[in-house]
């Protein structure tokens, strides 16, 4: 995270009024920053610095041409202010962590304190620590994983250390030409996690990106690849509930997941980027016979997020779930959801979306259920609930369905509601303040999703909602 941009584009880094967590340091002097902007030479230079094999260089260049040729998406959020030539596409690790903890504003420190975040982690989250110093924990986990044959390394490292496996899977789920922003990521990717779980291995503890020290894992264009071999299981956790600060205005990640026969993968994301960030992410999993893929996707931060974790159910009896939660305050637009493509018989899926908009915030659920002919006895349920907390907030629901098979059960339901004055009155008559009462109602609303989070995340999420709700009502 925290890619320093000494002269950020004012249009993009302008922190929306009311944003409490952001700051930037104009005094920062990075050491070896590439020039702003993107062209084929920059793409080649990134590949050269990383010492990559020729096929990856070629792949990056091919992706760059796709990026150039593609128009910006005309749907979703407002992306008109993104200037691709005003962005740094590569910053080396030594250039990072040059900010000082003293520069971190009081209010963001207070937020960390109130969330109960440990000292070392605070610095990491604030971008002032180059690494999250949890070495003891990390080394124990690493030793256990190695015994099991699990690979859990940075994606750059994986390309060098496991070249054949890397080449076999990279770009197979999300090809370079999938969409403009995936093409951009493929051209300039750096960082991210590479995970391989051998057949029959169950990774008991959730793997968390910030346990993997010395590697950029919440970068601007990270690339994550997870392969769960037959009968294995793993839970990967990305991001954190606490606000994460970056001066980079564009975050465009690609996550590819392969869930082989009988395997199970859960991928949990909680993003709380500072409110200057365009968070445009492509996440997709392919799930084979008898496998289970679950996305738990929480969107709290950013200026605009467009993210629709997808699951291609390619084998019989594969099951996919997307749990999506979005929270949009003033100046924010969370355009999130999920997609499930049923391409085999007896496949099942469940999408649950809970969104909350307050202030002038806007949440949009955007999703797709597609059933190909021959996917007999497929079942899918999509359930969207939206809570609107202020008069100026907005909520949209765009649930696409394409059903080309008769023998299926497909359903979608959505409700939109506001926190009722009667509910508030009741809780306040029991001695709660208005904001406490509203926070309690909101916590109840998102409970089905929070309970799916690892415990420390759930605790933080509830506290964070409480913080966000202060002053939201009345």
């Amino acid at each position, binding site marked *: 995270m925290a890619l320093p941009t000494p002269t950020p584009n004012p249009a993009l880094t302008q922190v929306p009024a009311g944003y409490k967590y952001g700051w930037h340091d104009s005094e920062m002097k990075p050491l070896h920053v590439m020039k702003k902007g993107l062209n084929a030479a920059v793409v080649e230079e990134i590949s050269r610095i990383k010492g990559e094999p020729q096929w990856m260089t070629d792949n990056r260049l091919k992706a760059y041409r796709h990026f150039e040729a593609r128009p910006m998406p005309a749907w979703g959020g407002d992306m008109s202010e993104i200037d691709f030539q005003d962005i740094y596409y590569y910053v080396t690790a030594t250039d990072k962590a040059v900010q000082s903890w003293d520069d971190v504003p009081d209010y963001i420190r207070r937020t960390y304190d109130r969330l109960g975040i440990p000292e070392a982690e605070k610095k990491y989250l604030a971008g002032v620590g180059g690494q999250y110093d949890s070495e003891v924990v990390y080394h124990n986990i690493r030793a256990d994983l190695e015994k099991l044959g699990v690979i859990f390394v940075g994606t750059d490292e994986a390309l060098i250390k496991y070249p054949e496996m890397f080449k076999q899977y990279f770009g197979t789920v999300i090809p370079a030409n999938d969409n403009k922003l995936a093409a951009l990521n493929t051209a300039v990717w750096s960082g991210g996690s590479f995970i391989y779980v051998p057949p029959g291995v169950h990774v008991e503890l959730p793997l968390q990106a910030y346990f993997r020290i010395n590697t950029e894992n919440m970068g601007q264009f990270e690339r994550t690849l997870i392969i769960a071999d037959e009968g294995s299981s793993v839970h990967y956790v990305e991001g954190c509930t606490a606000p994460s600060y970056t001066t980079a205005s564009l975050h465009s990640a690609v996550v590819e997941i392969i869930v082989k026969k009988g395997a199970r993968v859960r991928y949990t994301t909680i993003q709380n980027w500072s409110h200057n960030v365009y968070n445009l992410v492509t996440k997709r999993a392919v799930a084979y016979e008898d496998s289970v893929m679950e996305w738990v996707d929480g969107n709290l931060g950013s200026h605009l997020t467009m993210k629709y974790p997808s699951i291609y159910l390619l084998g019989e009896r594969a099951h996919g779930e997307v749990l999506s939660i979005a929270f949009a305050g003033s100046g924010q637009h969370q355009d999130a959801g999920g997609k499930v493509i049923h391409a085999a018989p007896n496949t099942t899926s469940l999408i649950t979306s809970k969104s909350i908009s307050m202030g002038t915030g806007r949440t949009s659920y955007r999703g797709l259920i597609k059933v190909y002919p021959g996917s007999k006895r497929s079942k899918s349920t999509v359930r969207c609930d939206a809570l*609107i907390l202020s*008069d100026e907030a907005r909520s949209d629901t765009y*649930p696409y369905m394409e059903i080309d098979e008769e023998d299926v059960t497909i359903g979608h339901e959505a409700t939109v509601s*506001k926190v009722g004055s009667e509910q508030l009155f009741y809780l306040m008559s029991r001695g709660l303040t208005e904001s406490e009462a509203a926070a309690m109602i909101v916590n109840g609303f998102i409970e089905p999703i929070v309970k799916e989070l690892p415990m420390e995340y759930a605790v933080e999420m509830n506290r964070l909602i409480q913080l966000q709700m202060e002053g939201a009502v009345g």
Partner: protein
Amino acid sequence: MTTGAQTATPVRLSPAAFDPSAIAALSSARGEPDWLHAERLTRAERYQATPWPTGSEEEWRRTSLAGLPIYAPLDEKATTEVSGLDPDAAARGVVFAPLAEALAGHPDLVRPYLTDATPGPATHATFWELARAAWTTGTFLYVPPRVTVELVLRARTVQSRADAAAFPVTLVVAGEDSQVTLLEEFASPDGGAGWFGGTVDVRAERGSRVRYASLQLLGDGAWRVSAQRVVVGADAQVTTLNAEIGSRVTKLGVEVLMAGKGGTSKLLGVLAAGDDQKIDINSIQDLLASHTTSDLLYLSALYDQAHSAFYGLTRVRPEAKQTSSYQECRNLLLSPKAGAEPIPVLEIETNDILRCGHGATAGAIDPIQMFYAQTRGLTAVEAERMIVRGFFERAVADIGSEPIRARVLAALAARIGQEAA
């Protein structure tokens, strides 16, 4: 009007080849007054100035107009017949007639509604203008304030040949606190590729109660590219039913404007499609005023390779407080090759809502229902018919008019089969 004149100046309808002088010739041949002549030419200009859908618009992504017979000649012999108006209602000022007849008899009454320049539904704006330029038939209904028409009024518009183009214009105006029920049928012969571009414009003034049912029985080669606009005034109650049975391709755009405080609309649809029929409906329930209620229920039964698409948008504007709205779209897939794309969209711009939601389903008949019906002695075919009929009954009964319910069910039987004895 002679067929000779038609051959001499064919009205080329495609935007590229469109010739406004043919519209002028059409008006002259019909002996229309100057204002109407000018109106048609104005509309022709607006038609040319309004772009066709490109196919990239959200509402046009699922149906291509590539096969639309744009060179079909204008059907100048299409007819509209009306019935059901009792003399008492006529005496109280109700005007119900084919459009041309109403124009001849009540030009001052018809003129403001026919020349109203409010654009049609945004998705079909160009076709709305084309219909106002090139109509040769249509229906006009005007109910004065505080007049109640008890009996169901009926209109039937029929194309004279399958391979022609017709753009009937329906105008329904219900004055304040009036009540009226209209069943309108549209038909054309089987066997040729025709273009049906009828438009329907319903205005329900303050406190009125309107039931409008449209029964579409076009021929098996017809392309229906049609639009409906319903404006619901304060405290008015409007129920519409669209029964889509015929045509090869239907692309219907429905716009319901909840324009007055306290208005209520109920939008019902039944679609029974087979063969390679494609029925694509886009709707918008635009909640502009406070305390409005708008509920939509569209049901489709799809046989053979038929395909339905429904893109319905509920938009709740910031100033529309205390509204209630719901969209429900259900699809029964009765063949392995049938398909459905139900897409109910919400855009809510205020938090002060009473209720807003939607539901969509697609799937085969519940096998437990089939099993149960068969244990009661029905064959599989009979059981399916009974279940499909029951499925439609919910919407058809909700129109609240027994003659309409009976007529629509009888028409649906052509697709779903007769009821088991």
